[in-house]
């Protein structure tokens, strides 16, 4: 198992390097550069000023040199300097990363827990109105655009009912400490995390339901029944555990999308995470920040995938012991 993890880590490093290069090439292939945007905003778009800006940021150097410099920095975790925010990119990201991790991880847990629970319930009540209700609700959340649900949730729970804060990460100026701070952040977290999580719930619910029904038909479930086991034990120990295998695979794939979904949610709820950082950076053509955020989100996806693989190995002895 350890060898397996080591091999996956080595692979992940190579994938990350490839992603770095690919991102760099792609973004430089797009027309326009930060110097042009800055000069435009400054209202002084003459050649001399542009040339100065480019020299200052190293944008006048050949492409390969720029790439080489960038890679050299990245390996030492120096992701360059944001010309717009006048701060090192790594620092910018470092400030925002915890908020995003908190949001995506909470949403991830919400989606899996609710999705699996709803899926189990739907499978047990297959064909009844419970099943129909659960399936329809899940489909509704899945079919509705994420930003719209976010806006409506904010409107209902924050503006109309006033139950929950509708934006931000904590109450500005309150300066809570200790448990109060945790509670404050938790309160702010509920709306964005639930909105983001519910969108992905549907997929886990459908998968769990289908998988449970499929496993229920397998021979070993009949064996368990022939032993005289109670149905609840059969469902939990024999059916659910086996049914979770494809759900775990799916969760690994979905992890990437949840990071993507965070961009929308963070923007609507003014959540100070890297999703919003990316949104701002793209509109300002802040190369290094964009590259940095891409890099960090790619790393997060790889990490989620690795966790999924390890989890799969723990649950399924066929994977663990044949390695």
């Amino acid at each position, binding site marked *: 198992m350890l060898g397996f993890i080591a*091999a996956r880590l080595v692979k992940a490093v190579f994938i990350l390097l490839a992603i770095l290069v690919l991102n760099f090439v792609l973004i430089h292939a797009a027309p326009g550069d930060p110097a042009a945007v800055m000069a435009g905003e400054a209202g002084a778009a003459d050649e001399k000023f542009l040339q100065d800006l480019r020299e200052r940021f190293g944008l006048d150097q050949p492409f390969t040199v720029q790439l080489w410099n960038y890679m050299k920095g990245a390996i030492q975790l120096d992701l360059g300097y944001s010309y717009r925010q006048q701060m090192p990119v790594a620092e910018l990201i470092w400030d925002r990363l915890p908020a995003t991790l908190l949001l995506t991880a909470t949403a991830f847990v919400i989606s899996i827990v609710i999705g699996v629970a709803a899926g189990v319930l739907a499978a047990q009540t297959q064909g009844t109105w419970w099943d129909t209700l659960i399936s329809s609700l899940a489909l509704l959340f899945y079919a509705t655009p994420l930003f719209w649900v976010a806006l409506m949730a904010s409107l209902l729970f924050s503006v109309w009912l006033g139950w929950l804060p509708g934006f931000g990460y904590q109450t500005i100026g309150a300066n809570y400490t200790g448990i109060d701070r945790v509670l404050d952040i938790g309160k702010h977290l509920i709306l964005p995390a639930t909105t983001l999580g519910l969108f992905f719930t549907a997929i886990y619910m459908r998968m769990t339901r289908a998988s449970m029904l499929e496993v229920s038909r*397998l021979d070993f479930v009949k*064996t368990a029944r022939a*032993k*005289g086991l109670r149905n609840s034990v059969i469902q939990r120990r024999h059916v659910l555990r086996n049914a979770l295998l494809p759900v775990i695979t799916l969760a690994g794939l979905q992890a990437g999308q949840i990071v993507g979904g965070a961009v929308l949610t963070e923007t609507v709820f003014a959540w100070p995470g890297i999703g919003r950082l990316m949104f701002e950076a793209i509109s300002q053509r802040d190369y290094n920040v964009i590259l940095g955020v891409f890099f960090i989100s790619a790393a997060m996806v790889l990490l989620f995938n690795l966790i999924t693989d390890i989890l799969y190995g723990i649950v399924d*002895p066929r994977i663990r012991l044949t390695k």
Partner: protein
Amino acid sequence: MSLLTIDNLSIALPKGADRALAVKDVSFTLDKGEILCIVGESGSGKSMSANALMGLLPEGVTPSAGSITFKGRDLLTLSDDEMMALRGKDISMIFQEPLSALNPLMRIGDQIAEVFEAHDLLTPPERRKRALELLHEVGLPDPDQTIRAYPFQLSGGQRQRVVIAMALALEPKILIADEPTTALDVTTQAQILDLIEDLRKRHGMAVLFITHDFGVVADIADRVIVMQHGEVVEAGEAETVLLNPTHPYTRALLDAIPALTFRDSVEQTAQPILSVRDLDMTFTTRTGGFFKKPRVVKAVQKATFDLYQGETIGIVGESGSGKSTLGRCLVRLLTPQNGVVEIGGRDISKITGDALRQHRRRIQMVFQDPYSSLNPRSRIGTILTEGLIAYGEDKAAAREKAKELLTVVGLDPSAMDRFPHEFSGGQRQRVGIARALALDPEVIIADEAVSALDVSIQAQVLDLLADLKDRLNLSMIFITHDLRVAAQVCDRIIVMQRGEMVEFGPSAQVLGNPQTAYTQSLLDAIPGKAHEAALAKQKEAQL
């Protein structure tokens, strides 16, 4: 009084099924310590009857009349909880598929201990101790290791022993065995049958044994019930039913068992049509980790033989012996590492691209499972003409040819416009044979082509193959695990063991006078030989 009495049991199928009752007015008794066999083909209702005893009928299927009396109570009137308390304790059951009968994510020991847990018996350490004893009793090697193993680490036969250990755990009065040996090799089957017999004697259980195989019946049954279309058509002492069957269906089933008689070799033409020399096929699987040694399986080693025009060579052996791999190398679904495969004087073992595509029509395959070998979304006409059209045949001419082929294999040409699901297993296998014939191949490879069929259907398909062989002078490689079938259709036989050809010669020689202990053990394991001897004696007496 009997241990178990089934009286006029009827089981209703859900609306829309092909018949209203799965089982109709079935009555029988089971006594302490006896083995009662229920025999019948698929759809005869034999499994349904057994599942009804356990209260494990599939959803929508319910007993509609009759009673099942056990210990003075009618099982059909018991509540779910009462039935649950009975299952595993008084009546236990083993199933057909040992590979899927165990939870893949649970250790063997835990799965056995679960039986005690289900009935709130013993403490966890005691359960473990009993599990060890049980593993020992069913003859599993190294119980200490096995108890911690996961199912995938055991072979099919070992898993079936584990399932039997679970069934025995609480010393049930009745053991229901639903085709427990059908998915196993003959040698493993013989061992499991011995085990069941032995346990029956030691524990005095009654065994209800469900099977489609009269050979197995002859070896273990005290009494027999023959079922057809949900009804009991014949019942009685095993010997009486087997030697003097009264119902025509029983007689037909008994006649359909291929006899262990041999064919003479055909005269060999000067030039072999297919010539195989020193063929090696090795599988290397990399399983995770950069530094782990890859697993190497030598599936076929140094296979060498010639196939002549009009000849059928059988390849027999247990599962994992490499017989299917050899077949796949010949069709070039696999590329052998070493060796020569010559067809018509040309080595095709390494060709690729267009040359390989041209070669494919010369050697065609008939597969084992008629249910998965035909594309369910294609009409029979498409299935049969696809190959011809791919090789440049005109569409109308291809359809004409397909219709002819359907007639040849005994189907109506109107089948062209229908889909595979509209046909029975036997009919589908005929379509599979027609498809293989469509390209006028020089060699046909039949991989377990009749293994998934009921005996009576099997006999029909074997007759068809024999007839086609005579009429079209076909050359065939017939891969099978069933020595009776091999004896019936093959001129010469190759016996494979762990990738090697351990014996090769005319059928009469290989099966009549085997030279290796392995072939002998395969022959010894064939069920029903004692019955065959009795039958021969009976015939002699009648003359």
